[in-house]
């Protein structure tokens, strides 16, 4: 177990280094605060959990402390450390006003670790991914204060000639195209970003998830070490790519200026899809345990991400889809229908998980009426 946690931390290392190199102290501050808060919360939890049981005598704090510390293992450090690093990497570098970032980091980390994990009984018993829960909570509370326009983006690494009002995905909402519905029209804006810049991370975004190369390096390492289940990764990315390709065909036909390659590149390399797929969807604790259920879990995640991205009010769907899928994991594990074999029924369920969103997607993109602003 320590080995698997360690492997994921090693896989995250290139991304962490890249974030610190590019964002400097801001990234370091994010990492330090969130890791410290999560580790401290877990330590307090260990102390509380391993209190000396009531035996009529009064125990001093020192005895209680000793009893708790003796149960503190390396896993109690590595697990919150991992959650903390992931949480830090999906937070922005700065906020406007500046002090909000401290509040956001501390509150988000606390909510993530306490409500996402510790109340369920610590490592191995949690239903929700702590990092995703913390991120979603922070985004809902402080999302409007997130700032991608500060002086970090004027360094040499970034291109500053583009409109940097927000991340590529948040900017999409402001684009329209005459004669088509808003769902299709938003994609008229993707020509403003080159695929290379998206791939290299030279766009505004969260401090970790923009660097696709280091994420891919981490992914290869994890697959090589068998520290993540490739079924979830492949089914998630496959379902996401398939549905996005369907949308891409329709969008390219309706908007002649958008090419299909540009659309797919934008879909794959924008936002947190890759980061979420590699480091958050593959968290074994919060996913089902059978391999067919894991495939279903990945497919569901991909479909939800696409639906939220195209139709949702929020620009970024990965964290939300992770939480929604986490809720479905116990259902997929229910013994009445779980099992190791790929039966016909299960294949039918997998197909419907992909095809029902596909039909909704196609119908909505083709026939949704144009909304006049």
């Amino acid at each position, binding site marked *: *177990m*320590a*080995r*698997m946690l360690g492997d994921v931390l090693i896989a995250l290392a290139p991304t962490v280094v890249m974030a610190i190199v590019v964002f400097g102290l801001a990234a370091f501050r994010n990492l330090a605060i969130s890791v410290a808060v999560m580790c401290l919360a877990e330590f307090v939890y260990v102390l509380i959990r391993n209190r000396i049981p009531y035996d009529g005598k009064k125990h001093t704090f020192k005895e209680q402390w000793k009893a708790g510390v003796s149960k503190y*293992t390396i*896993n109690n450090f590595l697990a919150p450390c991992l959650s903390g690093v992931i949480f830090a990497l999906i937070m922005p570098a700065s906020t406007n006003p500046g002090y909000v970032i401290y509040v956001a980091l501390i509150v988000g980390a606390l909510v993530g670790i306490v409500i996402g994990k510790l109340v369920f009984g*610590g*490592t*191995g*018993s949690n239903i929700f991914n702590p990092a995703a829960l913390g991120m979603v909570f922070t985004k809902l509370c402080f999302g409007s204060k997130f700032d991608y326009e500060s002086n970090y983006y004027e360094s040499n690494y970034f291109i500053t000639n583009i409109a940097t009002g927000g991340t590529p995905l948040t900017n999409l909402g402001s684009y329209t195209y005459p004669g088509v519905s808003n769902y299709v029209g938003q994609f008229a804006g993707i020509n403003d970003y080159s695929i290379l810049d998206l791939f290299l991370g030279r766009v505004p975004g969260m401090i970790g998830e923009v660097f696709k190369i280091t994420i891919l390096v981490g992914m290869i390492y994890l697959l090589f*070490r*068998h*520290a*993540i*289940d490739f079924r979830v990764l492949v089914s998630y990315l496959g379902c996401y790519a398939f549905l996005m390709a369907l949308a891409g065909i329709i969008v390219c036909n309706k908007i002649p200026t958008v090419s299909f390659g540009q659309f797919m590149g934008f879909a794959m390399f924008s936002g947190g899809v890759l980061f979420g797929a590699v480091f958050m969807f593959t968290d*074994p*604790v919060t*996913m089902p*345990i*059978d*391999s067919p259920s*894991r495939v279903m879990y990945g497919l569901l995640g991909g479909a939800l991400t696409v639906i939220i991205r195209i139709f949702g009010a929020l620009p970024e769907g990965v964290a939300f889809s992770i939480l929604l899928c986490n809720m479905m994991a116990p259902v997929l*594990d229910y*013994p009445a229908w*779980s*099992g*190791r*074999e790929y039966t016909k029924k299960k294949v039918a369920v997998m197909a419907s998980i992909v095809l029902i969103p596909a039909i909704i997607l196609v119908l909505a993109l083709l026939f949704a009426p144009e909304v006049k602003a």
Partner: protein
Amino acid sequence: MICKSTTIKDSKGLLGRLPTLKADVPEFVFIATDNARCPASEVYVKEGDHVKIGQVIGLRKGPFFEQPIHATVSGTMVGYEKHYHRSGKLVNFIKLQNDFKEEWDPSCSPRSDEEIAKLDRKGFAEILKANSSVGLGGSSFPTYVKFQTEAKIGTILVNAIECEPYITADHRIMLEEMEKIIGGIRYLQQAFDCKNAYICVKAKYTDLRQVYGAFLKRYKDEGIKLKAVGNFYPQGWEIAMIRSATGIKIPSGHLPSEFGIVDFNVSTVVGIYDSVKYNRPVTDRLISITGDGIRYPSNFKVRVGTPIRSLLERCGGYKHPEKDKILILGGPMMGASLPSDDCIVTKTVTSVIVLDAEEHKEEPCIRCGSCLLSCPAGLEPKQIMDAVKAMDKKRVKELKPMRCVECGLCTYVCTSHIHVTDYIRRAKTIAKLP
């Protein structure tokens, strides 16, 4: 490690190359009155009676079959003593004092070849029942039951795979008792009226493959072949071996004979040869005494009933006597761990493994799913464990823990060092409840 892992550390080293040592017959031998399959027994001799080798001195009674108990030395019966049996339980043993005359009981006279040629399947079954021949690979399943089938048999498989780490007893038998193995297979071919016989060994044992490649040229027309099967664990499991050797997949709950296959362990085949040819029960067997905790690992040919303590001394004792030891009888993956070294070699003991005790703390399960991916029986160990923890009888039954062969792979692959197999054993007792 979220992946299907079926390779385990072999740890056999060069033990398979060492010649077998002959252990001295001790002054006192101990014969178990009951075993796991036969919980009740009846003893025909009393204290002070004189016994000879091969004499029937009692009868073990089980729910489905009875087994005669044979003396393995000549001498006098001196009483009863409690020792540990290979199952890890404290069991009553008959204590026999050896007079070192090695006198055989008159009933153990060799059969002539003409007499053997007349035998049919039923005749073989009677001989094996009288000699209480059992599966010597560790199952102690009575061999004659396999001869009682009426089905037409197309293939005979001899299991010399020995997929457990450390043990090399079958490896040595394959090299040292070649003639007896071939003789035993001939009797099997006669009994089942079938030509096809395969001796299954692991593909990586190149020495066995070379030796048998040359040796089997003498028996060209007899249909005996060496079959190299996979190196994975548990390849020695009956169902896995049949699948690798013949390609037939036997569903759970069916007998191999329904598919025209019988299979025997290689030491059982040697035992069958002795019972049929010389009319003798199993009195000696090959065991490996090995493990990281023993000074000089060796293979021994020992008299059944020898206390293990004397054999450990023969191996030079423990390597690090100051450390805590774990004693395992019959393979580190499936065998039983013993609370003390005060135990006895019975017919079905294949090895004694001495390991230095290592403390592994159980960590919380992180649902990585390695146990599900690796389970050779197609079970869901993690789900069974959860059901056992919740004492949910209905759900335990739904998950069919009785299919488990207790190969121990789920405990081996667990990333959190959880003793999953122990939970499955508990699930089996829960599933037996009405």
